[in-house]
Each structure stands twice: as C-alpha cells, then as structure tokens.
C-alpha cells in the first residue's frame, strides 16, 4: 500500500519539477552572478517539489484512511444489527417474523464479514472473528429456510441462537472499545497497514495507534475463540471440513510401486520416461507426487501423477503441453475420454456434461449404480481439442465419497415428483434418479429425481428428494461463449 502511495506521489512531483526548471532557464540568462541565483532557484524549486509531494501523499493517505474508517464504522453497525436481529429472532413468535429476523442476521453478518476482512489488519488476528461471522450468517440462513419450510426449530438450534446472541454482544462490546479511538480520529490506518505488513508483534504496554487496533482485534478474536465448534446443516459448518474420505481403500504401497502405477496410468507409452518422486502430499488423502520426465527429443510430454499411499489410486494427473488450434468437436472429445476411462478400469462412469474452455474440453463423469447417477463420485477428464489427447484426470471427488451404497427405492414416483415442479419450468428430458451432495449433518447425500427443463429460455436442473418430496436444489446451466454439451 505504501508503495502505491509513493508512486502516485512521484507522478504529481514530476509536474512540479518541470515548471521549476522552466523558471530557472529564464532567470539564468540575465543575472550577473548567475551560479548563485541558480542555486537559490534550485533550492526553492526542490522545496516546492517536496511540499507538493508531501501534500499529495497526505491526501492519498487520508483518502485510503477514510476508506478504512468507512469499513470500520460499517462493521460496527453490522455487528450491532446482527446482535439485534438475533434477539428478535428469539423473541418472534410467528414464523413470518422469525424468517425476517433470521434473514437480517444473514445479510448483516455477511456484510460484517466483508467489512472486517477489508481492514488492514493481519489475517491471523481476524481469522476466528471472520469465521464466527460467516457461520452466524450461514446458520441463520439455514434456520430461516427451515422455519420457512414449516419445520420446527430443534432445542439445539435454539441453544445455538442464544449462544450466538451472547457472543455477538461480546463482539459488539469489544468493537465499541475501539470505536472511541476511531471516533476521536486517532487511528492512522496507513500506519496500521504498514505495521501489519511488517508483521511486528505488538509491544506490551505501548499505546501507539497500530497497537491499539491490533490489540483491540486480538481481544475480540480471543473472545470468539471460546465459541464451541458449530455443527449444523450448512456449507460453512465445521463438520464439512472434518469429513474423512471414504473412497481410498486398499493396502499401503511404497514409492517404487507408485512410480510404476504412474507410468502405466498415463495415456501414452512412458516406459522411457524418467520417473521420480517429486514430493509427498500431506492432505486428507496422503499421496506420492510422481513426476515423469520425457527423454529429450522423444517429442513426448512430461507428466505429474499423484498416487495415494493407500491402495495406489491415482488422484490427479496433469500433462503439460502447448495446444494447437481446435480440430475436433466436443462429441469426439467425450468419446476419447470414455476410451481413456475404460482403459484405466473406471467402468460404469457416464459423462453428464462437457464444456469447452479455451482449446480444451472439460468433461465430468459420474458413477452410475443401477441407473442412478451418483454425482459426488465424480472424476473430471480434460481433453485437448487439437488431437483428442487426454491432458488431465482428477478423481478427488470420487476418492472422497465413493463407497458401496445401498440405494433405497424411491418412495415418490417420477410422476408424483413432477407435480411438485414450478409451472414455469418446461421439462425437456425424461427424469432420472440421482444422488446429489447435500450439506446436512446426518448424511452428506440425498437420493433425488433429476428434472432437466427450460424456463424463459434458460436451462435448469431441478432436484426433488425421492423420499420426502422436498425440492432440494435448483441449478441453472450457465452457457459460456464457448460450446457446451449436456448428456
């Protein structure tokens, strides 16, 4: 940030310098002791130049600081509104008012999160507060949806709302302490930003502005840290992150075996490639990262293949090469991807969609069990559109969720589900059963009827739960300027 201010300052300064030099040239010709006069003029010119620089920098600092003040005061308002809306949601007796209050919580909390994160304070100090605000908003949204669906709020939901209300009161109090400093105009945000960039720990006892701000937010963040982990049905809930991959099965393998697997996996003859372990991946799915380097002048590309330490499954494969202009179409690319998948033993996978991005096609394939499309078990194949070569393979989704599923019989027939669709949707393809990912605590998946249709000239997928008849998801197909294909 400081660098940018400097640059802008230099530009303004350059103009001042130009006029100063013009003045020097005019007076230098007439005076008798011209060297002395020239020096004086130069001194004046540089003073003027310096002053212009300084004022320009001041103006920019103030402008930048005002932006931060605006975010800070907005944040205060947002947190206060979150607190009030949470109280209202607890007091409201009617679902109508409760949904309104919860929607307010959602909106104000996400604005608060955005404002908080635009302050020039180290992320380390803000992380927990940011997470808290996101989860409050997320939880309020999920609960509002529940109430709107005429479902009862559980005792747990009630407790969480009460705790969130208390927590947001603490948060508001912590921020109010800093508000006094801010209102008196004593906070110099540019210095706060400089301090944050330097990552210098705040000195104990010192009360210069950067410390006041950092201390204030550190205290706020500490108070939020006592908040228990939040497990509820929502995309930002803590259980989503804690979910263990279930598709990585088999015996552990060593690095030599990993190289062998990688060599056989790539879609070209890599027997002459130099295979070595480039590194290890320490993620939820531990893996060896194998690099296959092509011998010189073989004309073959290099490849990177990630092989799981358990079972030797390939998670990611990427082949880097330049791509020539497009020669084949999407259908041909899908066919090539299909051949590749059957060659690596990924049978009973079906393509659902293909899209053209640049000179490549990206094709997701999903696992099909007894005619049911299991969307979480997805692999993605990237095909070059110049000659149909496979460029990359990604089975992270598949390995995370694939397991032997017992698919229950739908208790609602397709015709009954169709009755539940919006009248604005014109169904364009026969419905099919699909398992889709949902963000609930009990189960990560739901069996649904998938309807494809159009509405006002746009394509949609609508999912109706095959057990409860609840409309789970509506997806819109966004067509890119390049081609796409739905299957």
């Amino acid at each position, binding site marked *: 940030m400081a660098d940018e201010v400097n640059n802008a300052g230099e530009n303004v300064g350059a103009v001042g310098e130009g006029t100063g030099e013009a003045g020097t040239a005019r007076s230098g010709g007439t005076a008798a002791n011209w060297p002395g006069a020239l020096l004086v003029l130069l001194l004046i010119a540089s003073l003027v130049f310096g002053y212009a620089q300084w004022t320009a920098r001041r103006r920019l600092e103030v402008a930048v600081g005002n932006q931060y003040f605006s975010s800070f005061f907005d944040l205060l308002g947002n947190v206060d509104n979150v607190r009030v809306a949470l109280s209202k949601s607890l007091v409201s007796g009617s679902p109508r008012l409760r949904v309104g209050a919860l929607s307010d919580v959602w909106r104000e909390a996400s604005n608060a999160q955005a404002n908080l994160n635009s302050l*020039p304070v180290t992320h380390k100090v803000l992380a927990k507060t940011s997470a808290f605000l*996101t989860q409050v908003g997320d939880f309020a949204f999920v609960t509002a949806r529940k109430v709107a669906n005429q479902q009862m709020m559980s005792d747990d939901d009630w407790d969480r709302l009460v705790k969130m209300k208390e927590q947001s009161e603490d948060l508001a109090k912590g921020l109010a302490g800093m508000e006094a400093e801010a209102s008196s105009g004593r906070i110099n945000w540019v210095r706060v930003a400089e301090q944050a960039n330097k990552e210098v720990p705040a000195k104990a006892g010192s009360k210069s502005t950067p410390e006041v701000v950092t201390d204030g937010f550190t205290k706020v963040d500490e108070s939020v840290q006592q908040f228990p982990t939040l497990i509820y049905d929502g995309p930002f809930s803590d259980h989503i992150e804690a979910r263990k991959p279930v598709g990585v099965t088999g015996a552990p393998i060593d690095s030599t075996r990993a190289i062998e697997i990688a060599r056989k996996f790539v879609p070209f003859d890599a027997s002459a490639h130099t295979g070595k372990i480039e590194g290890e991946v320490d*993620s939820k799915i531990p893996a060896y990262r194998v690099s296959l380097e092509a011998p010189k002048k073989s004309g073959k590309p290099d490849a990177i293949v990630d092989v799981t330490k358990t079972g030797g499954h390939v998670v990611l494969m990427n082949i880097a090469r330049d791509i020539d202009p497009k020669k084949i179409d999407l259908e041909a690319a899908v066919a090539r991807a299909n051949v590749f998948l059957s060659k690596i033993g990924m049978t009973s996978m079906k393509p659902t969609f293909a899209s053209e991005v640049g000179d490549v096609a990206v094709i997701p394939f999903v696992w099909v069990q007894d005619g049911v499309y299991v969307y979480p078990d997805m692999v*993605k194949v990237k095909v070059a559109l110049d000659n149909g070569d496979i460029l*990359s393979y990604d089975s992270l989704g598949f390995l995370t969720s694939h397991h032997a599923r017992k698919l229950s019989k739908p208790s609602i027939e397709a015709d009954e589900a169709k009755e539940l669709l919006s009248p604005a949707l014109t169904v364009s393809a026969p419905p099919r059963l699909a398992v889709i990912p949902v963000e609930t605590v009990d189960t990560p998946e739901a069996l649904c009827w998938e309807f494809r249709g159009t509405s006002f000239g746009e394509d949609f997928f609508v999912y109706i739960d095959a057990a409860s008849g609840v409309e789970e998801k509506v997806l819109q197909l*966004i067509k*890119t300027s390049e081609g796409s294909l739905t299957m």
Partner: protein
Amino acid sequence: MSSTTKRMLIVGSTVFALVAVVMVAVVLRGDAQGRAGDANLLARLVAAEADGEPYQGMVAVASVMLNRVESAKFPNTVSGVIFQPGAFESVSNGLIWRRSPSRQAVSAARDALNGYDPSYGCLFFWNPSKPVSGWIWSRTIAVRIGKHVFAR
C-alpha cells in the same frame, strides 16, 4: 400525410425494438460471462505471484484463492480474497496490474475454476527462501510445488 406518419411510426418502432433487443442481448451476455471477471482476476494474481513456477504450481496458487473463498475464515468472494489488505505482496505493490497474464496463467486460473486442485485444499502458500512471518510456519504443510510450499 397520415400514411407517411404511419410509415415513420412503423420505422421508428422497428428501430426501437431492434435497439431494445440488442440491449437485452448485451445485458444477458454480460450476465452469462459473470465468472469471466473472476477468471481474469485469478489469472492476474497467478501471473504476479507464480511467475516462473511450474504449471502445477500456478494452478495451486489459483486453487488457494478459491479455497479461501470457500473458507469461513476468509472473504467469501474472489475479489474480496485477492484484495484483502496485506494478503498478497503483488497486490500491495501493484505488480498484478503491471504484468498482463500469460496464456499459461489464464489456463491455470481456468483449471482451478473447474475444480482441479493440486494444493489439496490449502489456504496458504509462501516461498520458504524469502523472509516470511514466523507464525505461518505453524501451519501444516501439505505439499511443495516448485519454489512454493502450500499449507492448510
């Protein structure tokens, strides 16, 4: 007289209708390209932060941005993540606006948007040979690609 007025009216309304159609088309196109803004921003950041890195490393840097969007601890939009004060050196010093993204950077950003994540869900990356703050080393390092380490 009345026939010319009529004709003018017809011509006028046709022109108006055409303009309206074109405008609607332009607006719709803008909507459909909604994610293009994200792709361009990502590509710029990749070009500035991962210049000279292997392709996997470029995709991983773009993935870190997207993982941050998904994380509750970070802003929930791509632009929010990229312009978070002090988050990226190349944003702070303006480098991302001085360098136009290479074809590789653009394709890395697209790969990441399509869900390809060689960082395996990481939220941080840094170059260990450059001075970085001590606390960042307390994160669990998941993988090393080129000159960068990636951590959760």
